[in-house]
Structure formats: structure tokens, C-alpha cells
């Protein structure tokens, strides 16, 4: 019997071994794992079962990963966690831009997958509150996006307008990997290119110096090499 609090996770992967690994890593008392072996079957099951989260492999034989992502994104906001091979940052970026929420690189450990999946489930459940509500507090920071007031350990911190826009993009997507292009659209309101794109990393470095305890060992804005940045999930 499916209880009210049960979580449904759909795994779309053509390799039965990987499906088993994912199932073993995620299945539990309150988690039901469904499987699909092709992209087409995955999209059908996603439509029929309305899972809370989808684990999607990139190397599907029938449909490109990005198409599966985009199609599911068309009618569902369930988090999509992508399983990818190394050496394919471009592919990861394309998938995140197509609406995926996070990715795990093969070979991954079950603990890593569990952590990523839990973070995404937590984030998707907290979603209605994020961005809209009052000030956010974490790590000695108090971020009030509505009033544009930031304080660190009680003292006010001054941010430039661009840094505010950056921080807003990060906080309202906390726990989610944002590609350079997504950040760019959120801050500058259009797709990347030109000078400001070249300075994105410099703005992030400046923002880190203002909000991180140690900007060389950032704990809030984490770099996802070749892909973008991820703001730490809000508790």
C-alpha cells in the first residue's frame, strides 16, 4: 500500500546493473523505486506515475538525454538527477540547461547518489518558500533579498547591484547547480556572450570574499568545474 508520505523515484537507465545499484542505494521504508529501460518507456512511466524525482542516464540507446529532460520538464517540476560519464562537461551543461537539476558522475558511490537525491528532494519540497519568504540565515549570514540587506556576524556587508543579482540567483536556487548561462540569464537577463560573461567568475570571486568565511575554501558558493556554481542547500 502506498502511503501518503511515500516518495516515488523513477530510474531511467538501459543498463540493468546500474538500475539495481540505484535501486539499492535509494530504496527504503518510504521510498519506492520504479524502473525504465529506455527513454521512451521512461517518459511514459513518468507521465503515468508522477514520480517525485527522476534519475536519468545520459547514454540511452533510443532518445538523447536532453530530449527526455526537456520533455519531462514540459509538464513536471520533479527534480531530475542525471547520471553521466566523465569527460562530458558539455553534455552536463546541455542537460542542466534543458532542465535537469543535478548530475552524478559514473562511477559514483551510493552515498554520493543518496546525498544528491536527498538534497534535491528536500529542495523541491521547500521550493514554495524559497525566494518568496523572509530573510535567509546560514553560516552567520543573514540575507534579506526583499530589503536588499546582507549582514555577516551582525555587521552589514555592502554588495554591488550585480552582486545582489548574483546572490539572489544563487539563494533562490540553493542546492541546485546553475550553469554559467543560467546564472547569466538570471543576472543580466539574456544569454551569455560578450564582456560581462567573461567577468562572471570575477563577480563570483568578489561575492565570495564578502560572504564566505574563507574564500579559498568556499562553503556557500561551490564551483562545479566546467559547468557552473552551486549554492549550498538551505537547511
Amino acid at each position: 500500500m502506498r502511503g501518503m508520505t511515500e516518495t516515488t523515484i523513477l530510474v531511467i537507465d538501459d543498463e540493468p546493473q546500474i538500475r539495481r545499484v540505484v535501486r539499492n542505494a535509494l530504496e527504503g521504508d518510504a521510498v519506492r523505486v520504479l524502473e525504465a529501460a529506455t527513454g521512451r518507456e521512461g517518459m511514459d512511466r513518468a507521465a503515468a506515475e508522477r514520480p517525485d524525482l527522476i534519475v536519468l542516464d545520459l547514454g540511452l540507446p533510443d532518445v538523447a538525454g536532453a530530449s527526455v529532460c526537456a520533455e519531462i520538464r514540459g509538464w513536471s517540476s520533479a527534480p531530475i538527477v542525471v547520471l553521466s560519464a566523465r569527460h562530458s562537461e558539455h553534455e552536463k551543461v546541455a542537460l542542466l540547461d534543458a532542465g535537469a537539476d543535478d548530475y552524478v558522475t559514473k562511477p559514483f558511490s551510493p552515498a554520493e547518489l543518496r546525498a544528491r537525491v536527498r538534497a534535491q528532494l528536500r529542495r523541491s519540497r521547500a521550493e514554495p518558500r524559497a525566494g518568496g519568504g523572509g530573510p535567509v540565515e546560514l553560516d552567520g549570514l543573514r540575507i534579506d533579498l526583499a530589503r536588499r540587506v546582507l549582514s555577516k556576524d551582525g555587521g552589514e556587508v555592502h554588495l554591488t547591484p550585480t552582486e545582489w543579482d548574483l546572490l539572489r540567483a544563487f539563494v533562490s536556487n540553493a542546492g541546485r547547480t546553475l550553469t554559467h548561462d543560467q546564472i547569466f540569464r538570471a543576472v543580466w537577463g539574456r544569454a551569455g556572450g560578450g564582456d560581462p560573461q567573461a567577468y562572471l567568475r570575477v563577480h563570483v570571486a568578489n561575492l565570495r570574499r564578502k560572504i564566505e568565511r574563507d574564500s579559498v575554501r568556499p562553503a556557500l558558493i561551490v564551483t562545479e568545474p566546467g559547468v557552473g556554481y552551486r549554492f549550498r542547500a538551505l537547511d
Partner: protein
Amino acid sequence: MGARVRGLLRWAAWLAAAAALTAGMAAVRADLERVHVALAYLLLVLAASSSGTRALGLVVAVVAFLCFNFFFLPPYQNFGLSDRRDWLVLLTFLAVATVATQLLHRARRQAAEVQRLSAEAGRAAALREADRLKDALIAAVSHDLRTPLTTIKALAHDLGETGDERAVTIEEEADRLNRFVADLLDLSRLNAGELRVAPEIVAAEDLVGAALQRVSGSLGDREMRVELHPHEPLLLGRFDFVQSLRVLVNLLENAHKYAPAATPIELSVSRDGGRLVFRVADRGPGVPEDERERIFHPFYRRPQGEADAGGAGLGLSISRRLAEAQGGTLAFEPRPGGGSVFVFTLPSADLADPATLPG
């Protein structure tokens, strides 16, 4: 039969043919006109030079010239000429015979050259094809390996949680195998010139932070000292973030593998003119003087007796090539007091005032 013997036999055969032709024509000399003799000799010269070397053709031409003069132009059995116009006949014959020999020789050389070139082109195409197949094979193998590696890692991980120490080793070895295959893939891409670098403006501390994050799992309790001052202006460079990260992570992991666990690893970043200089220093055994360049060669292994670091010996060679592909360098320096310093440089970048960028 050697080539030399065959060559001599050919010479003998053509000289004998010249003698036979001369004897045959001499027997019917009364019925022949000069032009018949000249044409017969010319045919002989052409046949000789097309079958043998240029030297054979020229010698047969000279022999024919002399025989023509000696036997067929009056006074007979004598090299003198009674009719001066016969000189013209003789010299024309000699000129035609020589030019024909030369032309034949040239045509043959060109044909040989064309053949050689097309054989070379065929070989080059075959080599390229072999290279492409090798790379495709490595790519396919490395991709296909990831599925079983994921399964192995996952099972080992679950076993490890039940307290079996051996499972931890299995998981570590799976990671090592994965790194090894990835290195092979990179080397093959670098060799094929397929590895693209995408330089962009990056703050040095972004790179250092990402490297520290990536090695945080494998470094365990190792003390990491980072010398990079957050109060000074941002140090900026123009380089490929992902490839530079790989170089820096490789240097940190090497230092961790070779240096005693109780010693710290030190990482510093500074600006030196047009370069950002990353220095990774350890208190490991260092590198003997005659090995200091060889450590950057593919598949280099440290001499036996030292701890096996478990790599394929690809890390440093790949790292150096990644550094150079972005206009940087990677070099070794001995460390005063013992140990190694790896110096990794990248092109620096300047912005008017990094703290107040245009939005």
C-alpha cells in the same frame, strides 16, 4: 643472384646486342643507307636505356656512335670521315640518342616518384586510420568500463558499511582503474590534437578552492597550507578552468602520494609579470637530478625501491601538455631542505579594477 651480377649481365647483353647488330648490318652494308643504320642504332639505344640505367643507355649510345662512324661511314674501318656532312649525321645521331636516353630516364624517375608518393599516402592513411581506431577503442572501452566499475564500487561500498575492510580497498582500486582509463583517454586525445582548451578569465582562488575541494576526500588528515591572501586584490588569469584544475589536482595528489603523512603540503600562488605561478611543495623524497626531465615523459615510473604510487605514470606528462596547451608551463624544482616543488604557470590577466566591474 645479386643485383650487381644482374647489372653486369645486362651490360654484357646490350653490348653483345650492339656487336651483333653491327656485324649483321656490316654484312649487308652495301644495301644500307646511312639513315637505315642510324635508325637501327637509335632503336638499340632506346631499348637499352629503357631496360637499364641511364649510364647503360649513354654508353650504348657512344658505342653505337663509334661503330656507326667506324663501320658505316667512309672511309670504312677508320674513325676519319671523308665527307664532312657525315659529321652532321653522326652528331645528330649522338644528340638524339643522348636526349632520348635522358628523357626516358626522367620519365622513369617520375613514375617511381609517383609510385613512392602514392605508397606513402596510402601508408599515412592507414596510420591515421589505425590511430582513429585506437582512439575509438580507448573511448569505447573507457565508456563501457564505467558501468561495471559503478557496480563494483556500489557493491564494495555496501560491503564496507558492514565493516569489511577489504571492501574499502576494492572501492579504492575501482577508482584507480577509472582514473587510469581516463588518463589513457586524455593522452590519446592530446596525441590526436582533439583536446580543446577554452580560456576564460578566472580568479586564482576559484581554481585553488575547486582543487582543494576535489582532493579533500583523498588527502585525509594531511595538513594543507595555502598561501593566498584574500585581502590583496584578486589574482586573475586567462586559462581553461577544467584543464588547469586537473593539473593542480594531479600535483596535489602526487605530493600526497610521495610525501610522509606527517608532513604538510604547501600550495602558494603569486603573480610574476605576465604569469600566475602556482607552486606545490612537499617534503617527499624529491627527484634525482638525472630524472628531472624524464618524470614528464609518458609511462615514466620512479625507480624501484620507492613506494609504488599506483599510477600509470601518465599524470605528469598529461599535466605538462595541458599546461602548455594553454600557454603555461610545468616544471620541477628541488626544494631546499628536501622534497619537491612543482611550478605550474598560467597566463595572467588584468582588469582595471576587479572589485568594481561594470555590471
